[in-house]
C-alpha cells in the first residue's frame, strides 16, 4: 500500500514525462482510462521508507474540456484519487507555461509547482525568486533541472512533508474575474453553493462556464439555481479570451518582481532561419527524415542480422530432430513455423528499437516540431495537421513504428486517422519485394515506371481513404488547425531515450510474437504434405480451387497465396512465391527469404514461365496496397484501443488492394 498518491500535470514539453520516467524507472504500467481511448500511465517509486503511486496525466495546454485527454485529466483530479497534484511549468517560458497553474487555480486539491528547465532559463539570463512565488501562491515551488541529482533530492524532501494544507491561493484570480466581468460574475457566483461543487470553487466553475465548457454545465447540473446560472453566463461573449486575459493578468502579478531578466531577442537563430524557410527548410526536413530512416536501420542492424540468421538453424535442427525420431509434422512446425515467427519478430524489433531511438532523439532536441511545421500543408490536405507527419515518416521503415509514433497526436480521431493513412506508406520490406518482382518482369526501366505508378496510386489512395474515414473519425470540432509551440533546442536525454526505445521494443515483441507464431504454424500446417510434394498440400488444393475467382483480380493461386502470406510479414510473400513456383516446402522458403535472396535463376524461370506480365503487374499492385502485416495490425489495435476500427480499416485495405489489382490487371490486358 502506497503512502501517497501523486499526479503530474503540465503542458506538452514541460518535461513531465522525463520526470515520470526518472522517478519510476521500470515500475510503470500503461493502461486505459475507463471508457476512454486515452492512455493511462501509472507507476510507483520508493524513497527512504516511503512508497508513492504516481500518475502521469496526459500533456495538455489547459483544463478546458476540448478533448478526451483534458476531460480525463479533470475527472481524475476531481475524483480525489491523488493526494497531491504536481504542476509542471517550463521556467524558460515561465509566463506562458504557468497557464496550466492558472487554469488549475480554484480546484481544491493540494498541489505544488515545479519550475522545470531552470538551467535553460539561467542560460537565458533569467533569475527567478521561487520563494517569493511560493509565498504568493501558498504552495511549495521547486526550481528543477532534470539532469541535476540535487533537484530530485529536493523533491523527495518536499514529498515527505504533510501536503494536506497546500492549497493554491486563487484570491487574486477571483478578483481579476470580478474586475473583468463585474456583476455577471458576482451574480453567477452568489447563486452557486458557497464552498463550490465538489473540488471546484465557484470562481473556477464560473470561468469554465464563461468559456463555453459543456462539461462544466453538467457539473452544476445538481445545483438548484442551475437554470439561472446558465442564463447569466450564456450572455457572456468571447468568454475564453476574457478569462484568458484574467489568468495572464494574475500570472503577471504572481511573477512580477520575482523574475529579473535580460530582454530576450525574438529573432530566430541562424539554424532556425534555415529550418523554417520554405525551400531550405523543406530540403533540410526531407534530408533529416531520410537520415533518420538510415540511422534507424543502422541502429537496428545487429538485431535484424540476428533475426535474419536464425532460419539457417532450421535445417540442421530439423535433421537432428528427425534423427531422434520426431514426427515430421512436428519438426516442420517447430523448425519452419515457429522459428520463422521468432526470426521475423526479432528483425522487426531491431527496426522498432532504432526508429524509436532516432526519431525520439529528433523529438527530444526539439527539431520534430520544425518538421511538423514544414509538412503541415501536406497533412492538411488529408484532414490532419503537421504533427501527424511522424507516423508517415516512420512507416517508410516499418508500419509498426508508424502506428506507435501516432502517440504525438492529441486526439483519438486524428490518431486513428493518421494510422489508417500511414498504412498506405510501404515499409522497407514491401519495397524489397516490389523492386525484385518488378525488375524481373519489366526490366529496370519498367520497374521505375511501375514504382511511379504505385506512388501515383498511393496519393490517390491517401485522398480517398481520408475521405472515406474522415467524416466518422474526426468530429467537426476536432478538425483543428495547427497550434504548436516550436520549443527551444535542448540537449538530448540519452538515458531516457534508451529506456524508451527498449520499452517500446519489448512491448512490440510481446504483442507480435504470439500472433505471428499462430499464423505461421497455420500456414505451416496448410502447406504440409507427407509426400513432400506441394500438390498434396491443403494450400494447393484450396488455392487451385478458388483460382477462377482470384484470376478475376489478376491473381493466380500462387500469387494469391503470396498475397495472403504477406499478412504475416511482407518478406513472407517472397518466400511463398519461391516455394510455390519451386514446388518446395513453403515454410522453409518463407523463412529463408529473410536471410538469403531468392535462388533467382530457378524461381525467375518458373515465374516468367507461369505468370503473364499483366498478372505480375496485378500482383505487384495487390501486394503493395495490401493491409500491413499482422504485427502492424496488433500495434494499431494497441494504439487505437479499438479492435473494431482496426479491423474495419484492415478490411477496407484488403478490398482496396483487390480492387486496385483488378483495375490494373484489366487495363494491362488491353496493353499486352
Amino acid at each position, binding site marked *: 500500500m502506497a503512502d501517497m498518491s501523486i499526479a503530474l500535470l503540465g503542458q506538452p514539453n514541460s518535461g513531465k514525462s522525463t520526470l515520470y520516467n526518472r522517478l519510476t524507472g521500470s515500475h510503470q504500467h500503461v493502461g486505459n482510462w475507463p471508457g476512454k481511448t486515452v492512455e493511462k500511465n501509472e507507476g510507483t517509486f520508493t524513497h527512504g521508507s516511503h512508497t508513492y503511486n504516481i500518475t502521469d496525466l496526459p500533456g495538455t*495546454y*489547459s483544463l*478546458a474540456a*476540448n478533448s478526451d485527454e483534458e476531460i480525463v485529466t479533470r475527472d481524475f483530479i476531481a475524483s480525489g484519487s491523488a493526494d497531491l497534484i504536481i504542476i509542471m511549468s517550463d521556467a*524558460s*517560458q*515561465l*509566463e*506562458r507555461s504557468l*497557464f496550466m497553474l492558472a*487554469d488549475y487555480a480554484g480546484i481544491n486539491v493540494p498541489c505544488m509547482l515545479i519550475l522545470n528547465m531552470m538551467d535553460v532559463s539561467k542560460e537565458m539570463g533569467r533569475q527567478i525568486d521561487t520563494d517569493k512565488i511560493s509565498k504568493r501562491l501558498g504552495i511549495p515551488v521547486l526550481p528543477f533541472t532534470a539532469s541535476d541529482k540535487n533537484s530530485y533530492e529536493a523533491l523527495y524532501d518536499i514529498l515527505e512533508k504533510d501536503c494536506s494544507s497546500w492549497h493554491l491561493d486563487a484570491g487574486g484570480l477571483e478578483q481579476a474575474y470580478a474586475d473583468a466581468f463585474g456583476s455577471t460574475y458576482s451574480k453567477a457566483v452568489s447563486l452557486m453553493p458557497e464552498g463550490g461543487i465538489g473540488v471546484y470553487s465557484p470562481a473556477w466553475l464560473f470561468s469554465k462556464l464563461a*468559456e*463555453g*465548457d459543456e462539461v462544466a454545465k453538467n457539473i452544476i447540473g445538481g445545483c438548484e439555481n442551475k437554470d439561472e446560472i446558465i442564463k447569466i453566463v450564456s450572455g457572456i461573449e*468571447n*468568454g*475564453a*479570451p*476574457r*478569462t*484568458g*486575459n484574467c*489568468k*495572464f493578468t494574475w500570472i503577471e502579478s504572481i511573477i512580477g518582481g520575482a523574475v529579473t531578466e535580460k530582454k*530576450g531577442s*525574438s*529573432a*530566430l537563430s541562424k539554424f*532556425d532561419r534555415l529550418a*523554417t*524557410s*520554405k525551400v531550405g527548410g523543406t530540403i533540410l526536413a526531407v534530408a533529416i527524415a531520410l537520415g533518420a530512416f538510415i540511422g534507424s536501420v543502422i541502429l537496428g542492424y545487429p538485431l535484424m542480422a540476428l533475426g535474419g540468421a536464425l532460419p539457417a538453424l532450421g535445417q540442421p535442427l530439423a535433421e537432428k530432430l528427425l534423427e531422434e525420431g520426431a514426427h515430421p509434422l512436428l519438426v516442420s512446425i517447430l523448425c519452419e513455423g515457429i522459428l520463422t515467427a521468432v526470426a521475423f519478430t526479432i528483425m522487426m524489433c531491431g527496426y522498432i528499437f532504432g526508429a524509436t531511438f532516432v526519431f525520439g532523439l529528433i523529438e527530444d532536441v526539439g527539431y520534430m*516540431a520544425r518538421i*511538423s*511545421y*514544414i509538412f*503541415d*500543408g501536406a497533412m*492538411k490536405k488529408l484532414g490532419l*495537421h*503537421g504533427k501527424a507527419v511522424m507516423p508517415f515518416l516512420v512507416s517508410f521503415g516499418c508500419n509498426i513504428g508508424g502506428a506507435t509514433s501516432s502517440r504525438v497526436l492529441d486526439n483519438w480521431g486524428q490518431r486513428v486517422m493518421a494510422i489508417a493513412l500511414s498504412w498506405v506508406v510501404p515499409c522497407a520490406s514491401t519495397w524489397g519485394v516490389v523492386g525484385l518482382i518488378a525488375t524481373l518482369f519489366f526490366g529496370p526501366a519498367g520497374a521505375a515506371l511501375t514504382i511511379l505508378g504505385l506512388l501515383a496510386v498511393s496519393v490517390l489512395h491517401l485522398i480517398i481513404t481520408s475521405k472515406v474515414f474522415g467524416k466518422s473519425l474526426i468530429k467537426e*470540432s476536432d478538425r*483543428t*488547425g*495547427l*497550434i*504548436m*509551440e*516550436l520549443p*527551444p533546442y535542448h540537449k538530448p536525454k540519452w538515458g531516457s531515450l534508451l529506456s524508451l526505445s527498449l520499452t517500446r521494443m519489448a512491448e512490440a515483441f510481446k504483442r507480435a510474437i504470439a500472433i505471428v507464431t499462430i499464423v505461421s504454424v497455420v500456414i505451416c500446417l496448410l502447406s504440409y504434405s507427407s509426400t513432400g510434394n506441394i500438390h498434396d498440400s491443403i494450400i494447393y488444393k484450396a488455392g487451385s480451387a478458388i483460382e477462377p475467382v482470384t484470376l478475376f483480380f489478376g491473381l493466380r493461386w500462387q500469387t494469391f497465396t503470396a498475397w495472403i502470406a504477406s499478412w504475416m510479414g511482407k518478406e513472407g510473400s517472397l518466400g511463398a512465391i519461391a516455394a510455390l513456383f519451386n514446388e518446395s516446402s513453403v515454410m522453409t522458403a518463407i523463412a529463408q527469404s529473410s536471410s538469403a535472396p531468392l535462388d533467382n535463376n530457378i524461381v525467375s524461370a518458373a515465374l516468367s514461365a507461369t505468370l503473364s506480365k499483366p498478372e505480375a503487374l496485378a500482383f505487384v499492385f495487390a501486394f503493395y496496397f495490401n493491409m500491413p502485416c499482422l504485427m502492424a495490425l496488433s500495434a494499431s489495435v494497441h494504439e487505437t484501443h479499438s479492435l473494431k476500427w482496426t479491423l474495419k480499416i484492415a478490411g477496407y485495405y484488403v478490398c482496396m488492394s483487390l480492387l486496385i489489382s483488378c483495375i490494373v490487371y484489366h487495363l494491362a490486358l488491353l496493353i499486352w
Partner: protein
Amino acid sequence: MIMKLSDIKPGGKGRITAVTGDAAFQRRITAVGMTPGSTFEVIRREKGFPMLISIRNTLLAVNSEDCKQIETEAE
C-alpha cells in the same frame, strides 16, 4: 488601426485586441498565451505554411487560416 494577424508582414509587431471564432478555437488559442492585450512579433509568413509568431517568450506555429480570426493593432 485594427488589422488581422494574418495580414501582418514578418517583422511586424503589435498587440492582440480580440480573438474571434468559435469557443473551442478561443479556448485553444488562449491556452497557448494569445490573449487580448498580449504583444507579439510575426516571425514568418509563407504561403502554404503556418505563421510563426513570437509571443510571451514562445515561438508558436499557428495555422494561417486561424490567424484571420485574431485581430491586432500596431504597438
